[in-house]
């Protein structure tokens, strides 16, 4: 198992309902998993617990057989390098050009000195350009990110994630802010990366259709509990009703 969640729970404030309620989940390397659920169902919390942007209240997380639930400081940092993330609002660094945003994928590897004074080596810049080539934005290296369209910004986000050379890529509704055509293109790109590089994908998605089309396994969450876990062909109308209840 690449990732194992054991009775994982998250309660943001005492007395409130659990955002995650004793979730158990096993993820194998190279899987493409879609997570479905209403907003507020706990799917963002689930994904953020995996890379510890959010600390779980209870339960354990194992990555490649090692417990990472309570990692701190340098250990947590080194763990996070293995897991990249893309976001609904792309979350690029404002007021910076495309290439710097892609190089940000290596910020977990570079020294602070190197980042601050932009002393990037030519082979590092070439790697960043190769990632931009892969996402189809090689002609945009020196553009300011705010001048790009939503789809282009998400591609920069994906290039940044690729440069991180992650073992797993998390997506918090990566195509929810895009038009249907662009959303399909971005999903296709993620599908290609999963197929060719074997990077495990865990994507929160906003439509059942996208989940069916691109993933081999769908997880449905309702009120912090997993209510469906199976392949798209086993996802029936009654299951969808249960997820979006």
């Amino acid at each position, binding site marked *: 198992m690449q990732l194992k969640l054991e009775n994982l729970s998250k309660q943001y404030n005492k007395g409130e309902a659990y955002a995650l309620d004793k979730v158990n989940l096993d993820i194998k390397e190279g899987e493409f998993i879609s997570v479905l659920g209403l907003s507020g169902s706990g799917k963002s919390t689930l994904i953020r617990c995996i890379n510890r942007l959010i600390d779980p209240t209870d339960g354990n997380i194992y990555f490649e057989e090692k417990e990472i639930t309570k990692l701190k400081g340098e250990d947590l*940092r080194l763990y996070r*390098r293995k897991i990249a993330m893309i976001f609904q609002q792309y979350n690029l660094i404002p007021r910076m050009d495309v290439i710097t945003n892609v190089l940000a994928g290596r910020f977990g590897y570079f020294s*602070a000195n190197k980042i601050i004074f932009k002393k990037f080596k030519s082979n590092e810049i070439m790697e960043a350009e190769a990632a931009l080539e892969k996402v189809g934005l090689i002609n945009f290296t020196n553009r300011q990110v705010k001048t790009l369209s939503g789809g282009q910004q998400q591609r920069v986000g994906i290039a940044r994630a690729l440069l991180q050379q992650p073992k797993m890529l998390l997506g918090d509704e990566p195509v929810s802010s895009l038009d249907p055509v662009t959303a399909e293109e971005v999903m296709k790109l993620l599908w290609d990366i999963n197929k060719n590089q074997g990077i495990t994908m865990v994507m929160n998605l906003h439509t059942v259709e996208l989940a069916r089309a691109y993933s081999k396994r769908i997880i449905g969450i309702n009120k912090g509990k997993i209510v469906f876990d199976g392949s798209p062909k086993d996802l029936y109308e009654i299951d969808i009703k249960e997820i979006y209840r």
Partner: protein
Amino acid sequence: MLKLSHENSKLKLSDKSKRVYLTIGLLILFLWSANGTKFNPLLFRDFGNTLNFIQKSFLNPDWSVLPMALKESVITVQIAIMGTFLALILAIPISFLGAKNTSPHWSIYTFLRSVLSFIRSIPEIVFALIFVPTVSLGPFAGVLALMIHNIGVMGKLFSEIIESADIGPQEAVASTGAKKIIVILYGIVPQVIPHVLSNAFYRLEVSVRASLVLGLVGAGGVGQLLSIHFRMFQYNKVAVDCLVIMTMVIVIDYFGGIIRRRVI
């Protein structure tokens, strides 16, 4: 039905009595203040004196002090620039240490925020009154007074700007495994720079007006010139000082506004 209308009239009555109490209360407040300020409508008789005074001094300005007033108002602006710029340089590191999301420890955050609140609550003029007799009469005391007050204001303001920075880019940089300092420099700083600069320019405008007042207690600039002329009963010169000040404030506000719109 009968009961309902009865309740309604009772409600109206209580509304009415509330209004009566409010009127009486306001009247008492007014009379109390009138008494305290020795307000007497008959004193408006002396208003003729005021018109006379304006005619004699303000409509008859002594232009010979104009070069002097202009030179001193440049010093006023320079005091404001120094008092804002030095404060900006010191307030930036302080605000990162004093913002909840970037402070290395909660005790540092709590300590700095209470110190900043304390400094901010003391008006510039109090600092000037301390520095004029202890440091020197003139601009340096003004710079120090403005700087300290501005550190209080900017430190709190910038801390709040940092705290309200969008979490998105911070999460993005953190999820690459970057160190905390990089998360701050790339996840927060690019977002807050325009707001910090815009507020610094606004503080500069405010500081120009404040440094005028500081001049009145001897902290240099055109305010000090005005106070000297006033105390020597040279009202024709006071008139010129006031005109120069008014022009200066209008010009500064105009250009400050343009710059602030550009930065954001």
